[in-house]
């Protein structure tokens, strides 16, 4: 197990290094420059390049960047917020993006479980059809459509929540974006729970439980749900990463100052440090979550742990 752990961690670090290198090369190949302004003269541009060390060869810049990054220095912004440290920019926004992503995962998991459980218990009835239809809608309609619908009806018409992100109402402001984002995980989890639960309900040990005369709710909570839960936890990891990194469109609709918007701005303004940092932070989150999921997988499912230990 220890060996396996070390191997996985080493692979993750190598992956991150390659990602950073690719990002750097892509910035290099990107046409234009952050200092392409009709009002700057050639001499001024040369000065700016020198000032920010962009006149150095690519290799030198890459290793300088790598070295600074390990000390938490992600460089400064060239265009979005002149000379402001990018590490701070990302830090300020990251927590907000994470909060919304996490809330969406929590809401999605709860709704998904409810829908999936109800559908499985009422298998082949109209309730099942309804729940399954909701799940299909959730998967097929993009989150920004939900975002716009919520924005118009819940925020503008019913005035229950702020229409756009408002820093003075930080909690109320993230509810609608999180709801909009939670539709897709709700749908995937519901479908997953439903099929897992049907499997469990048809298994021999549930038959035994029923035969023993254990009450329905106790059977569902102690036996059915618990056994359906394990596979669901393994899909939560990728879903969470997807939400944390894929919410830029919803951020745009609700005007949320999150990492997604920052990344888009960085690309539009050719703000190299911002673009690299945001893309890298996303990659880092992805790699770390996948690592944790991989490791947890062994712990959660005793069968996997036992098989591995057996080897």
């Amino acid at each position: 197990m220890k060996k396996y752990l070390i191997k996985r961690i080493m692979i993750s670090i190598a992956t991150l290094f390659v990602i950073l290198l690719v990002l750097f090369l892509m910035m290099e190949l990107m046409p234009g420059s952050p200092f392409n302004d009709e009002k700057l003269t050639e001499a001024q541009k040369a000065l700016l390049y020198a000032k920010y060390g962009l006149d150095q060869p690519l290799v030198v810049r890459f290793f300088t960047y790598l070295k600074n990054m390990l000390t938490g220095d992600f460089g400064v912004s060239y265009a979005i917020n002149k000379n402001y440290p990018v590490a701070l920019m990302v830090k300020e926004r990251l927590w907000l993006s994470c909060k919304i992503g996490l809330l969406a995962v929590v809401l999605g998991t709860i709704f998904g479980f409810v829908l999936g459980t109800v559908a499985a218990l009422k298998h082949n009835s109209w309730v099942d059809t309804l729940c399954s239809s909701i799940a299909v809608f959730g998967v097929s309609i993009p989150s920004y459509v939900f975002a716009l619908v919520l924005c118009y009806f819940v925020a503008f018409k019913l005035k229950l929540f702020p229409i756009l992100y408002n820093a003075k109402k930080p909690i109320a402001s993230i509810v609608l974006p999180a709801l909009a984002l939670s539709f897709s995980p709700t749908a995937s989890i519901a479908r997953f729970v439903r099929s897992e639960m049907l499997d469990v309900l048809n298994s021999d040990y549930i038959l035994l439980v029923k035969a023993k005369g254990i009450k329905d709710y106790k059977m569902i909570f102690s036996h059915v749900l618990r056994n359906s839960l394990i596979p669901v936890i393994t899909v939560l990891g990728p879903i969470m990463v997807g939400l944390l990194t894929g919410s830029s469109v919803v951020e745009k609709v609700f005007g949320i100052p999150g990492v997604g918007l920052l990344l888009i701005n960085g690309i539009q303004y050719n703000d190299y440090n911002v673009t690299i940092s945001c893309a890298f932070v996303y990659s880092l989150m992805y790699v770390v979550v996948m690592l944790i999921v991989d490791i947890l997988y062994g712990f959660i499912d005793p069968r996997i742990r036992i098989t591995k230990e057996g080897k």
Partner: protein
Amino acid sequence: MKKLFILALTCMLALTMVACGGNGGNDTPDTNTVKSVTLATDTDLISMDTSLATDGTSFIALTLCMAGLAELDANGTPMPDLATWTVSEDGLNYEFKIREDAKWSNGTPVTAYDFEYSWNRLINPDTAADYAFLIETCYITEFKAVDAATFQVTMSQPCDFFLALCAFPSLFPLNQEYVESQGDQYALSVDNMIYCGPYVMTEWNQNDHYSFAKNADFYNAAASEMEEITFRYIQGQSAVLEYESGNIDFVKLTSELIDTYSSNEGFNKKLAGYLWYLSLYQPVEELANENVRAAIFYAIDRETIADKVLKDGSVAAEGIVPVGFAFHNGVDYRETQGKVCEFNLDLAKEYYAKGAAELGHDVTLELLYEDSDVSKNVAAYIQKCLQDAGFTITMKCEPKKTRLSDMQNGDYQVALHRWGPDYADPQTYIDLFTTNASNNYGKYHSEEYDATVWEAEFGASAANSDARWNLMLEAEKILLGDYAVVPVYQNGETNLINPKLSGIEFHAGGVDNYRHMKLAK
């Protein structure tokens, strides 16, 4: 039993909803009192460093919390702000007397040395400021603080627009001691700033909002009624919903929303000083041909572009100098010059035929434009216009910075380009096309044009305001007579402004002034 279970789950769900919505119930929007106003901005604040700021949003913010030698009044005329001035008879020497009651927010007085330091910082190559050229453009040969209260500026030529530029943030004063004590951190957040204007910045939450509170120590605090000003960085349909809900008092409309809101009480159109034109790269064989350029010039249906494609208050360009932008003795440049650009499809076809015959082949050109919705729509219509005249037009869409890069490298044929003026004088446009100008992307070369512009700026006529103005008029005629560039439209802006809000002063040739806003109850 199953029913009970479902009931329990439903209750759980309801509880979750309530828990999440707990903060939402009593979240009714704050009602605006007369003393506070919230405005939407569609671009984020980029820099609060007067030397480094380059965009309109930052300039508006700087004009609120900083002040200069002069301030533009509602008509765009420079009026004394932190200083009063006397001008020598030949117009070459300005002496500014700094007000005794002008103070920094840390209580120290604003002195002539603060201006000297700021201007030196602006032109210092290490600062690499975009606007470093302003000092030279005003023919300033020397500026110095004679004593704490006296600031002297000497020029090699009289400069008609110098005083208006004194209201431009790049020339505002800086407190040397404070700026240097903050080092790299100066003006990066509200903790690293010092103010000398009617407001102080209280919050700067990047990508979200920034706010100002009234500076009671400002000498002219009485002229600013608003106690609190907040700008929120929000845009598009949801920003307009915020306006409709009464949460904000000002929002810019994007073109697709204009029809929907054109009957709204707060609907407001204004002209900006930006001019969009087609830059023609003359080293290309086809564009070296004057008939081909003339065909492009006459083929563009500018009225339709402004009224049908854009609909945002933009107007058809009449020349390379915008309308309502530069005035001489109170008369608009465009009024004196009249309309130089004309749409005439028959003439365009005629010129095209002549040009194609001279070249010996049909003309295919590539149109370069940027990837904004507005530019895409305009470019598509320009393509249609040019194809009506006989051209074959291929399209090339790029992000703005890449487009500029291609233009600077001469890697284009026809490009839809924009110039934002720096001061309210035709010179800011006329200067762009002299042979050696760095913005002369199309490599236009005319000795007559160069000589006319030189005469206006440095020759015997430079000191004579009337003669200089006439030469500026003459220069535009030469430029467009050669079909060197093809003006298309002058930018308009459409806003929804709370009808109770007044006092925002828009300046086509300068920074919009938000110091004197009033919001009726």
